[in-house]
């Protein structure tokens, strides 16, 4: 099917909507990477089998969708149109769901979600606190469509914004609208998207390039992956609108090779868009041409930095360069280039469709719209949450996230990935937006929120991030390359309880050199994880240095494992599991750990079912 005008697109939509109404029930099975990891493919297959057995294949549709967000509870199944929400569904449950829910309209209690706070069973997706506090502008479509079906996207109103723009809106007006919406870059920088586009449009030089940064390297962030997997057309549509506004005919998506499903679904989407006349030459008969090439990244965190990403697209090593001349003027192959992240592009169709005035109503004074966060770590409900900017961290972690795992105490939340920082309890009431997080010593980054409890050591967390960056630094500039090496060395010392209080002054001096002297954002923000933990958890550093203690019981050199005699049942599980053979004791007798031999690997703690292992 090749659409040759926006009217043809509108007609196709009406036709699809009519067809869909005639359709009956839909079983939506989440097939994001998270649910795939829980075996959702087998669940879909079991449904197909069960429908066949009951001769319902014609009447009931199975839709494998993109990520619904509530990954913790996967595989997720939602029965539409009712919206009945089943969680942790096993292939064996499919038969019962078809027989009971589909045929008799009965709800299966054991598959429902129980609110951990009120202990109530909840039947409908909309009633679940994880969902009902969210505002899903960007992610809303995910649970309702098959990402490999362009028809699903069109049915839900997809590509209508593009159609309207191409025939009736001047590129300058598109840019004005995006500027007015207040949209800021979701990749972490927070730069005004509209202003970026305007500079690129005005820049001299041809051709101009459009780039989508899908090199989501921040550990703990996976919203871009889920968007590309679950709703690739929204990203593609955003890029086409951007290309039209800027005057570009060549686009690139630079996507992590670690995201095979995202690459696959994106390629399917691009092929379909070309087939429908929405991408390629003479889009929708408007005379405007634009196409997109997918480039798979080679695995380098630094390539999330725009100039390194461009170098990588050119086939070079991912070394950043100075940005005194901006990439909107001199970017890919030294031509004007606009680079935005996946989530930013996905916002564009909504802004154009509903208007900047509508969009501006969501969010705070200087941060408009919603932000998708990846809520992970020691929190009950892990997954993707999309909330309006300005919502307090506490609401995200405690209301949507359902509080801390195992009822333990909240200690910190890490935001912004390796360039961000750790915020303590006192920061939980801060409204989440670009500026407040930066003021608090962290940053929005791409939106990872990693919750930590009292058993997380902040020195260890800082060391973790510095080690991560040490391995990911490209090595071009001295402060980053050599600074990270030294910083890691110093943190290693602290975690062994070595070094004096002077070490902390040394760390602060070094951090300042790295911040001011490094070439790119990776090096300049590398000290953040250390500086933010020093700012809020200095006592914990001092405990390591002065008292030679790791209060959270993490740093191996400073802890001891022992058996809590009252709890030990003498089951020999730990004894068998101990790789160092450091545990002695006969069956049914209290065991003992020889701390001379013990390597502090933690396996005994992991295997003990009776809480009989003490770490201190």
């Amino acid at each position: 099917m090749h659409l040759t005008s926006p009217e043809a697109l509108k007609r196709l939509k009406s036709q699809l909507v009519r067809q869909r109404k005639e359709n009956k029930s839909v079983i939506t099975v989440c097939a994001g990477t998270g649910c795939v990891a829980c075996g959702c493919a087998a669940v879909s297959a079991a449904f197909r089998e069960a429908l066949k057995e009951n001769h319902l294949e014609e009447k009931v549709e199975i839709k494998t969708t993109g990520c619904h967000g509530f990954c913790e509870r996967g595989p997720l199944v939602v029965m539409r149109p009712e919206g009945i929400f089943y969680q942790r569904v096993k292939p064996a449950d499919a038969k019962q769901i078809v027989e009971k829910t589909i045929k008799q309209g009965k709800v299966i209690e054991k598959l429902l979600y129980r609110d951990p706070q009120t202990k109530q069973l909840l039947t409908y997706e909309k009633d679940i606190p994880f969902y009902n506090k969210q505002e899903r502008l960007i992610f809303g479509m995910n649970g309702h469509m098959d990402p490999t079906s362009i028809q699903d996207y069109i049915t839900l109103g997809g590509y209508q914004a593009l159609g309207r723009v191409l025939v009736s809106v001047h590129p300058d007006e598109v840019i004005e609208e995006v500027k007015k919406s207040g949209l800021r870059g979701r990749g972490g920088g927070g730069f005004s998207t509209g202003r970026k586009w305007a500079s690129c449009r005005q820049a001299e030089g041809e051709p101009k390039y459009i780039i989508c940064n899908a090199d989501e390297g921040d550990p703990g962030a996976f919203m871009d992956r889920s968007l590309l997997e679950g709703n690739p057309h929204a990203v593609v549509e955003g890029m086409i609108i951007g290309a039209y506004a800027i005057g570009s005919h060549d686009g690139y998506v630079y996507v992590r090779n670690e995201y095979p499903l995202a690459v696959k679904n994106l390629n399917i989407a691009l092929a379909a868009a070309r087939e429908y006349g929405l991408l390629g030459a003479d889009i929708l008969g408007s005379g405007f041409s634009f196409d997109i090439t997918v480039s798979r990244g080679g695995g380098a965190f630094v390539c999330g930095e725009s100039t390194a990403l461009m170098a990588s697209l050119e086939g070079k090593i991912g070394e950043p360069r100075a940005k005194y001349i901006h990439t909107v003027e001199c970017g890919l192959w030294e031509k004007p280039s606009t680079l935005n992240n996946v989530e930013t592009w996905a916002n564009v169709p909504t802004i154009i469709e509903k208007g900047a005035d509508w969009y501006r109503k969501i969010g705070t004074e200087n941060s408009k719209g919603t932000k998708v966060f990846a809520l992970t770590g020691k929190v009950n409900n892990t997954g993707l949450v999309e909330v309006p900017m300005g919502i307090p961290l506490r609401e995200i972690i405690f209301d949507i996230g359902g509080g801390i795992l195992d009822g333990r105490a909240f200690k910190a939340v890490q935001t912004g990935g390796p360039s961000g920082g750790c915020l303590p309890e006192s920061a939980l009431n801060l409204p989440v937006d670009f500026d407040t997080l930066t003021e608090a010593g962290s940053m929005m980054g791409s939106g990872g929120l990693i919750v930590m409890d009292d058993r997380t050591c902040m020195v260890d967390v800082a060391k973790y991030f510095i080690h991560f960056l040490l391995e990911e630094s490209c090595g071009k500039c001295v402060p980053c390359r050599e600074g990270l090496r030294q910083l890691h060395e110093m943190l290693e010392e602290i975690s062994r309880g070595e070094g004096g209080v002077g070490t902390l002054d040394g760390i602060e001096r070094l951090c300042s050199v790295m911040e001011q002297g490094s070439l790119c954002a990776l090096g300049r923000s590398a000290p953040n994880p250390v500086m933010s933990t020093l700012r809020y958890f200095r006592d914990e550093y001092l405990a390591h240095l002065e008292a030679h203690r790791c209060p959270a019981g993490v740093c191996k050199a400073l802890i001891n494992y022992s058996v809590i005699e009252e709890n030990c049942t003498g089951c020999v599980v730990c004894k068998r599991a101990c790789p160092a053979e450091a545990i002695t004791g006969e069956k049914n007798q209290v065991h003992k750990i020889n701390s001379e031999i013990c390597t502090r690997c933690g396996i005994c703690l992991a295997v003990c079912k009776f809480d009989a292992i003490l770490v201190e």
Partner: protein
Amino acid sequence: MTLPRAPLQQILTKYPPKESSLIMVLQDVQDAYRHLPLELLVEVAKALEVPKAKVIAVATFYKAFSLEPKGEVEIRVCRGTACHVRGGLLIMDEFKRLLGIEEGETTSDGKYTLEAVNCVGTCAMAPVVVVNDTYYGSMTVNKLNRILRATKSSKTADAAREETE
């Protein structure tokens, strides 16, 4: 030992012969040969008209590439932040012990390669292990032996996962 050239020739026809194709070509070569053999890199350099030195720079800069052959079974332990705070290090340590190799190494029989990987983006199921293309979530040290057993028999991903649960 000379390597079969057919896969390489096929890969080279897929991309325009220019520098910007280099990373994609290397990725496909890595997939096809499980490493980047030096003799093939010379041919890639010639085909794309890129200096050999630059090919080597790229091949050693990016994590996806390896100059040494990787094992049949690639075990990748996620070291994302969520996995770290949920005990990812213990998983790595235990794999090292079970396989008798260090991170980044391959067992002498060429069966297993053990690697740490930066966030695979399934943080909600932390800690995560990816074995070839199969994701295993909510890992604990006592499940690892079963994962290894599953790789020995030719079980499907789902069956293998069931077994670890």
